[in-house]
C-alpha cells in the first residue's frame, strides 16, 4: 500500500519534470528562432543607408519621367562665364537635352522618351548644341570639355 502511494507522488513528480523540461526546450527554441530573425539597430541603419542611394536614383528617374529636370545643376557646374552666357541663351529643350546627356548620363533614346521626341532627334539636338557652343566659343574640339 505504501509503495503504491509513493508511486503516485513520484509519478506526478516525473510527469511534472518532463512537462517542465519540454516547456523549457520549446521556450528556448522559440527564443532562438526570434533571435535568428532579429535585426540589430546597426544592421537596420546600414540597410537604410544602402537603400538611400537606390531611393535617390528612383526619385531622379521619377523626376525625369515627369519632365522635372533640374537645369540649374548644369549651370552650377560651369565655371566659365562666357560658356554660361552661351548656355543660358539656348532654349529650354536644348538645355534639357544637354542636362540629360551630361548630368544624368542618359542614352539618346532615354532622353527622347523623357522629353517626348525621338531618339534620333535628341541625338541631333545634342550635337547641334555642342556644335553651336564650340562655334560661339570660337575654339576647337576641346571646348566641350569645359562642361
Amino acid at each position, binding site marked *: 500500500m505504501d509503495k503504491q502511494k509513493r508511486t503516485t507522488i513520484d509519478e506526478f513528480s516525473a510527469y511534472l519534470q518532463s512537462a517542465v523540461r519540454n516547456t523549457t526546450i520549446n*521556450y528556448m527554441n522559440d527564443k532562438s528562432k526570434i533571435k535568428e530573425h532579429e535585426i540589430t539597430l546597426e544592421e537596420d541603419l546600414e540597410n537604410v543607408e544602402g537603400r538611400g542611394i537606390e531611393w535617390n536614383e528612383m526619385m531622379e528617374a521619377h523626376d525625369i519621367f515627369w519632365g522635372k529636370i533640374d537645369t540649374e545643376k548644369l549651370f552650377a557646374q560651369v565655371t566659365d562665364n562666357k560658356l554660361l552666357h552661351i548656355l543660358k541663351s539656348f532654349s529650354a529643350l536644348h538645355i534639357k537635352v544637354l542636362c540629360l546627356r551630361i548630368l544624368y548620363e542618359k542614352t539618346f533614346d532615354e532622353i527622347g522618351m523623357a522629353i517626348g521626341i525621338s531618339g534620333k532627334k535628341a541625338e541631333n539636338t545634342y550635337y547641334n548644341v555642342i556644335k553651336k557652343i564650340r562655334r560661339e566659343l570660337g575654339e576647337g574640339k576641346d571646348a566641350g570639355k569645359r562642361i
Partner: protein
Amino acid sequence: MQEREFEELLWKARNKDKKAVFEIIEMYRPLLLKYAKSNGKFDEDLYQELVCAVLKSIIKFPMKTEEHNNLYIKY
C-alpha cells in the same frame, strides 16, 4: 508530506482550489527555479511558462481510478 495528503492536495488543486494550487507550486519551486535559467541567468518569462506548465500538469495528470473514486466520494 504524506502520500495521502498529497493526493488530497492534488485533487483539491484539480478542483480549482487556489490554496492547493499555490501549495503545489511552492512544493515544486526548486525544480522550476532550476529550469528557469537561460544562459545561466534567471529568466522571469521562462519561470512564468513553467508555472503554466505546472497548472496544466495538475489538470492533465492521469490519476489512478481507485484513488480518483475515493477522493471523489470524500469531496
